[in-house]
């Protein structure tokens, strides 16, 4: 399966819905999408990972890169994920301390700090 990406705006947040597999082959597409959003002035991002089947360290690297970019504009990057196998990767790399992880898009969109 390939990677699918779609974006929508909810208030001042931009929700990026990601589906499929994020790995060394597909991660550059996600990176391009995040870079493009930031270049276009979207600094408050919510990445919805509920339809992600696979995530590896390359994908983590892209998310960290996205976080660095939005922070340079005093923005935010929040994740939506309930899948244990995806959450596990954030835990073993210590990234649960770096990303706010929410259980729903609604919760992430409403969150401030």
């Amino acid at each position, binding site marked *: 399966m390939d990677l699918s990406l779609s974006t929508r705006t909810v208030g001042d947040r931009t929700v990026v819905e990601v589906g499929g*597999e994020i*790995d*060394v*082959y597909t991660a550059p597409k996600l*990176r391009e999408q995040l870079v493009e959003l930031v270049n276009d002035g979207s600094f408050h991002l919510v990445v919805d990972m509920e339809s992600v089947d*696979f995530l*590896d*360290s*390359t994908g*983590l*690297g*892209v998310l*960290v*890169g996205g976080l660095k970019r939005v922070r340079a504009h005093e923005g935010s990057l929040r994740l939506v994920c309930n899948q244990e*196998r995806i959450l596990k*990767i954030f835990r*073993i*790399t210590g990234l649960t301390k770096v990303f706010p992880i929410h259980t729903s898009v609604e919760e992430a969109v409403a969150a401030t700090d």
Partner: protein
Amino acid sequence: MATVELRFSALPEHVRTARLVAAAVARRAGVDEAVLDEVRLAVGEACTRAVGLHQAAGVPAPVRVSLIEEEKQFSIEVGDEAPRSAPGERAPGSPGEDPEAEGEDEMGLAVISGLVDDVEVTAGENGGSIRMTWPTTT
């Protein structure tokens, strides 16, 4: 010899194939269903690292994956032919210079060591390998 051996060109698009094959062979070997996700992730990380090392060093050789079924255990060995004096060293001007790719190699290894209890990483002037072993139930 290994139960199944796989050699693939050092390109990112083939890493997924390696994951699928490794998971299929691991399942047949009797690796617990609950652990298969970890096998898939760990072999993907090891192959991603090998592809990165080959590309950085301009090594045309394929990446090797050996899937080895043994008594009460299943091992995966991912071998690269990228020469280095120190593990993880990259050639200047390589994709490793990309600030966002920086540290991904180490992150991959961190994921592997977080997932797999039995890991052996070796590296030398002729390349390196990562060998990971899981117990089997059959």
